[in-house]
């Protein structure tokens, strides 16, 4: 397997992009990544998109978007793994480069979610859960994550305030991200006083409905310096794991086993442990999700995730900053694009280009992107390439 580097990143302003179509949102991000890398062609492309069909009535995205980019007849592949579609699209791109099938590959993610109303968006998202055993009973994602929160609260004494602290921290980080959808500070009181969604989760515990796209360009590490002027960022690990899709079938509703497995594989590949990480970008689709994820990644012991945000451990300036980009909570969550945007953030951090949210001396960054209530997880670890021969 060849070593792989990321040499270009692109993303547009996320939000309710009423004036832009699905394909235009994607094309803007893809072109930005190609420009950033400074390459004049790509050999293949992957598109992470959860549900072009239900959100905009458009499937067959590989062909459509390759053409939009003006790069046909290159192979274009659409990848779906619910909210982990972006992370998994990157992994397919990584594998293609590592295996020697292609040299320059574009990994992208996109979702246009606001062309449908709230009910239709909730339905589209619910297709990531177990239709027969979960959705037919009437539950949707806020309800599932609310149950995960309840278990964590009852067993470990995690408090309502600690859930709010995650939102407060990520919105504070998002203030430094000019592409974030909700670039605003929130207080714990505002979070706890916002509209009830599924007890104990409130509106400000939930990531938003977002239109957006992100893209990155990969190539073999050894070609990176020749192809691009950008500092190369090495893909140190790429891991993917699955779990039972239905929450009630899991051994433990408060344990994200797929994340735990993927993280263990990733740490092994990279030859590092959680203590070596400079920062993490994780899938905080709900505030409780970040708490569960940082436990599964081994950043904190099991059951201790609740206190991490409030204590400053996971804030910028803390021991292990989590979601310096603002996370899904502040940056937005166009589901298929989220995993790629996490990787863009990791690359910016490792290049030292993250501006006011820069983690000092960042060397190792981890991204964790998951689908549904964690039935699929993709974990990547990136290392700042130090100019030494590997």
């Amino acid at each position, binding site marked *: 397997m060849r070593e792989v580097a990321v040499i270009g990143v692109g993303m547009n302003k996320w939000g309710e992009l009423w*004036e832009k179509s699905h394909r235009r949102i994607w094309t803007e991000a893809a072109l930005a990544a190609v420009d950033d890398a400074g390459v004049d062609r790509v050999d293949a492309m992957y598109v992470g998109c959860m549900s072009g069909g239900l959100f905009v009535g458009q499937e067959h995205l590989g062909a459509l978007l390759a053409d939009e980019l003006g790069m046909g007849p290159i192979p274009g592949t659409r990848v779906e793994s619910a909210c982990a579609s972006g992370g998994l699209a990157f992994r397919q791109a990584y594998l293609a480069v590592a295996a020697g099938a292609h040299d320059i590959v574009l990994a992208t993610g996109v979702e246009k979610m606001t062309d449908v109303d709230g009910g239709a968006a909730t339905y589209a998202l619910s297709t990531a859960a177990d239709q027969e055993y979960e959705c037919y009973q009437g539950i949707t994602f806020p309800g599932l994550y609310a149950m995960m929160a309840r278990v964590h609260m009852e067993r470990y004494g995690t408090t309502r305030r600690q859930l709010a602290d995650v939102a407060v921290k990520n919105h504070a980080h998002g203030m430094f991200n000019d592409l974030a959808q909700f670039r605003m500070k929130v207080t714990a009181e505002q979070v706890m006083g916002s509209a*009830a969604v599924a007890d104990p989760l409130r509106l400000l515990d939930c990531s938003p409905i977002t239109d957006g796209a992100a893209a990155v360009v990969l190539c073999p590490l050894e070609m990176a310096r020749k192809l691009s002027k950008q500092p190369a960022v090495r893909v140190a690990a790429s891991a993917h794991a699955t779990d039972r899709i239905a929450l009630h079938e899991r051994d433990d509703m408060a344990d994200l086993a797929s994340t735990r497995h993927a993280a263990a594989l990733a740490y092994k590949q990279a030859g590092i442990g959680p203590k070596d990480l400079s920062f993490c970008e994780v899938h905080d689709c709900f505030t409780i999700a970040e708490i569960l994820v940082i436990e599964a990644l081994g950043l904190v012991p099991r059951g201790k995730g609740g206190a991490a945000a409030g204590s400053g451990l996971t804030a910028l300036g803390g021991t292990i900053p989590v979601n310096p980009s603002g996370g899904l909570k502040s940056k937005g969550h166009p589901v298929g694009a989220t995993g790629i945007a996490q990787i863009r953030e990791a690359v910016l951090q490792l290049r030292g280009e993250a501006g006011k949210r820069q983690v000092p001396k960042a060397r190792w960054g981890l991204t964790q992107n998951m689908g549904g209530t964690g039935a699929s997880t993709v974990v990547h670890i990136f290392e700042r390439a130090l100019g030494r021969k590997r």
Partner: protein
Amino acid sequence: MEVGIRGYGAYIPRHRIRVEEIARVWGADAPTYKRGLGLREKSVPTPDQDVITMSVEAARHAIRRAGIDPVKIGAIYIGSESHPYAVKPSGTVVAEAIGATPEIHCADFEFACKAGSEGMFVALSLVKAGQMEFAMGIGADTSQGAPGDALEYSASAGSAAYIFASTQLVAVCEETYAFMTDTPDFWRREYQFYPRHGGRFTGEPAYFKHTLSCARGLMKKAKVKPKDLRWAVFHQPNGKFPAKAAEELGFTAEQYGQGLLSPTLGNTYSGASPLGLTAVLDVAKPGDRILMVSYGSGAGSDGFIWRVTDRIAKVQKLAPQTRAQLEDRPIYVDYGTYAKFRGKIRKLTE
């Protein structure tokens, strides 16, 4: 020749339903709706009240203030999205009821919530063109909102009528402006009982884009700034949107508060900004200048700048004042009564 408002009148039904009562039935969180929409309660029309009866009430109040013989009214334009008949005009019934027939021109207007200001716009223009001495524009609605939908918390009933003339004015029209685009944020198709809407799309790209653009275009055309204007009135689909629009334009709560009726009136659709203007005229002083901007989905805004004259003080008390009607002995109904009043219960005889 100066043209403007010679008489104005408002009508608000006395029945009300509280947000809590609607939320109770649907298992919704009332504080969330109250805070999110900036609404506490809304008016409810009784079974014998519709756009025609409410228009007649408001028209009579306007005639009293105008001090004219109704037979001299040359046109009546009623804007509404709840005309009682799909085919058969509301205007002729109102004209007959107030004694304005038969030498009169009638038309019913529809442009979602903008239809009322549209009727005003055309009536004013006909007087300005010298086609007639007096013309009446009315905005009235018994607004529809589907059961359980967010609109049900706001859709209410009310009407406002204006008589335009070139003599004995209470407010001179200094400027008009209109701003329209094809923006499908809210609609009701033929044979459908309730309107549909685009959720959050009704906000920034719809209400705010048109309301703010119209207000800015109007102020630019009139060469005025918010500080030059004493009052500001906007379309008020809820309590929150107009306040946000006003503040974004640089108006203070003191300027827009008087015309903001929606927190206790609800959204009277075509009646909304016309009713807000009546509430301002009720307290306005000679020389006050008023900005009024309507909004209708589909979408567009009409804008007016009015300058109040000395005659205002003589007419303010000639007919029931708007805020007095809003606050006068409201009768609170439960959801069952409300559902009956609004024809939401299917009966055997229908």
